[in-house]
């Protein structure tokens, strides 16, 4: 069952967890087949030669056409995305977030120390900083209003990284799941993935949903129950149950990006 909600749902967590009684048995057998499909496809695209530099695929590779420019990829857009992710992390830990910009900035800095983006924020003019602060606060309000109650019994984990090396090291799949709930240890499928974005949901969002599900399946050998994406820009939530068809389309998406990358090179 796939539910696409164009209005902000009552609670993101309600949709993410769904109805417990209707959860299917955990699928622990599909991962090997998907990996084989990917390996065959990568061989068809890249051949047997070992590349000097591996091709890295991220969610940003799937969001937009490789040749187009997306404003959300600008430094300001990236910082806004990072800060909203920090707000989500704090909320998942039960920390009340009163001043979204200041607190998320503090959380980010303590996490990464100094880097190019933190320096970029330090060098922003006062009016740009004020605009960023207002922007983050607005997105944070949407997130807080829509997220709902997140019980610690659901084992929430945030900013989970995934890394898969394929094609003899020629291709690397990288992914970060903003929020994951549920466990791979149970007999029924219970893992739900959530990606929070500060951009409106577009055509690429569906590909990202499939990519999250695919990489999570390859990483844990267990197919997740649900993959979802929430936009703090529009309050929209897209959510889909993960099945074999969705994962097969995820494989096609990855191979499509690889072909595009090879043509560009």
């Amino acid at each position, binding site marked *: 069952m796939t539910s696409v909600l164009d209005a902000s749902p009552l609670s993101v967590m309600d949709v993410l967890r769904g109805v417990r009684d209707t959860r299917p048995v955990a699928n*622990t057998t599909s991962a090997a087949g998907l990996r084989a499909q990917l390996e065959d496809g990568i061989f068809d695209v890249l051949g047997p030669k070992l590349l000097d530099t591996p091709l890295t695929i991220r969610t940003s590779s799937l969001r937009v056409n490789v040749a187009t420019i997306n404003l959300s990829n600008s430094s300001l857009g990236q910082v806004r995305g990072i800060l909203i992710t*920090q707000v989500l992390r704090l909320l998942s830990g039960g920390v009340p977030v009163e001043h979204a910009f200041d607190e998320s900035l503090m*959380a980010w800095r303590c*996490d990464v120390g100094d880097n190019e983006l933190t320096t970029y924020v330090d060098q922003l003019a006062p009016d740009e900083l004020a605009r960023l602060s207002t922007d983050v606060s607005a997105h944070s309000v949407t997130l807080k209003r829509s997220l709902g109650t997140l019980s*610690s019994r659901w084992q929430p984990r945030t900013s989970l990284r995934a*890394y898969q090396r394929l094609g003899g090291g020629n291709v690397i799949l990288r992914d970060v799941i903003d929020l994951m709930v549920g*466990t791979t240890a149970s007999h029924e499928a219970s893992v739900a993935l959530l990606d929070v974005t500060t951009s409106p949901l577009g055509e690429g969002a569906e590909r990202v949903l499939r990519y999250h599900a695919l990489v999570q399946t390859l990483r*844990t*050998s267990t197919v997740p129950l649900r993959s979802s994406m929430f936009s703090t820009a529009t309050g929209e939530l897209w959510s889909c149950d993960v099945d074999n068809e969705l994962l097969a389309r995820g494989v096609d998406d990855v191979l499509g990006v690889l072909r595009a990358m090879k043509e560009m090179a």
Partner: protein
Amino acid sequence: MTTLSHQRLSKHVLNRLIDDAPSDALFLTDDHRRSLSARFRAVASVEHRRLDAWMVERAGQPYETFRWSPATARRAIGNAALRRTLNDPALTNFDAVDIEITDQLLRYAAGYARGGSLASWLSSCSPTVIGMVSVEAANWATQLGEAAEAIHHPWIVATSDAYYDVARARTTLRGRRDLVVTKGLTRTLLRMRAGAPGKSAGPGLRADLTIDAFADSSGLVASRVIGLWPEAGVVLSVDATMDDLRAGARDLVRAAVALGRHQLTRAA
């Protein structure tokens, strides 16, 4: 020949690795300890050496200045929290992490924490930063707990890492271990790590296995060490054979030699 094996993470892989671990008990003797000590003594050092698997993996390059952060604090707090949830199953990982952090803060308030310690750092953090520490530690505890839940044999969260002071060589070895699984008289070590394993991950595991064996008062060697990289979905393991232990000790001595060179270069 060494025994490094590479597997993909799946529900039953840890049980298979524990079941298939060598069942013959292997012991290190006083001769082995004397031999290690002699080799370290032969490597000149201007200061007390602290070596671990990470140092072996980085070919003896000294650590950059350590600073506490949510990422560096997560293992200590996460492991302690998981231990608490085992004692009290009603606790969630977040509850256990909160109790552990409160415990650290109380330790500081009571004057039991030295400067630079985790408790001392936590006491200087804002509630937001403590919130991030709590989130990171809960991530760690959940991932380790999820892996441990599937293990059929009895296991415990290691109460501390393995430390071994090499006699008269001004050297301390530290072997990291997160879970200790017992099967009969033998034990298997499990170590969870972030990121993806590099080319030197195998030597790192060997070093952990070797240090753990030296740190054991009876010299009993763990039958296997398993390295778990949940982010990459990869499991590596090294068996306890004499070849592996020799290779592990050799890598540690080489790291000490390289570290000495780095120190001399820095001093010059």
